[in-house]
């Protein structure tokens, strides 16, 4: 599943600190949990998240099995230029998902 709810402000004053939020719909299956048949459910987690602001990486996170389902991130950026803010997250198999928004500074 690649659904996520993302909040990227559309406008900001130059130099303003803006809040970026992302809630990713994902089971974050740890690989330690047995299923109904008693066998371990294979690990299935989001491994990484990064945020690109106008092409520059401004935030990265590594995720581990102890992180709960539907991981939620909030972080702050200094909005100093207009551009695209893209959130990219990748799962165990290397599949990348992305969602982006345009911020206009001025």
């Amino acid at each position, binding site marked *: 599943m690649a659904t996520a*709810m993302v909040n990227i402000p559309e406008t900001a004053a130059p130099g303003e600190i803006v809040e970026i939020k992302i809630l990713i719909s994902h089971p974050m299956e740890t690989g330690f949990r047995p299923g109904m048949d008693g066998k371990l459910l294979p690990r299935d987690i989001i491994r990484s998240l990064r945020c690109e602001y106008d092409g520059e990486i401004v935030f990265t996170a590594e995720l581990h099995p102890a992180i709960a389902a539907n991981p939620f991130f909030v972080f702050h950026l200094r909005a100093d230029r207009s551009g695209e803010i893209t959130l990219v997250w990748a799962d165990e198999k290397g599949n990348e998902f992305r969602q982006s928004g345009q911020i206009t500074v001025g």
Partner: protein
Amino acid sequence: MRGGAAALLLIAATMASGDGRLSGTAFMSPETRAMQADDLANPGMFAVLEGARLWEETAGVSGRSCAGCHGDGAETMKGVAARYPAFDEASNAAVDLTARVNLCRTRHQDADPLPPEDPRLLALTTFIGHQSRGQKIEPDPDPRLQPWRELGARLFRTRMGQLNFSCANCHDDNAGRHLAGNPIPQGHATGYPIYRLEWQSMGSLQRRFRNCLVGVRAEPFAYGSREFIALELFLADRAAGMTIETPAVRP
């Protein structure tokens, strides 16, 4: 920011009914409350979105979708969850929202009923429940529901299981105190289906009942049983006038 403050005010208004009754939200940490208050942080909103998608999707031999009969769910389902469980003429019984969705599937869509706690079923009931968020619980006054009301009221006060506790022992007599470090809420089902952090998923009120029953070492009633529908109806009466919060987040 202003949106956040407004949401917090809304949640404060939601928590208390002014007569001493409190939603489970009132017993949560500020962090969990904030998670529920912000639609972009509330994982239950995924179920609402998925439910909105399923609402439009055809099911079964009929090729009909929920929207095919009911139109725009965001309009037509307003207030529906507030008056469930309700009386169903055809089966001459009380049905909850979950049972209603499955009745619609079998009667009108020619589709198989969805199994209990199926994510699709939870998504649909969460979507429908969400359309009543902010409204007051107004139980169905149908006199034919009386036997369920009485059964529910009785079950709520019946001691069960090896620990020999009734619902009332905790949720009436000891609400606000702690059980193994966790606050005991008053047991007002204002936000179901809920996203429970412990489950890391959505769950119905009946799943919560089964949890409590296992907790007192009792044999849980079956999903969809007369006993559970009766308890749901009793709880709706008990929480009448309180504000619906679906999808609530619970620890």
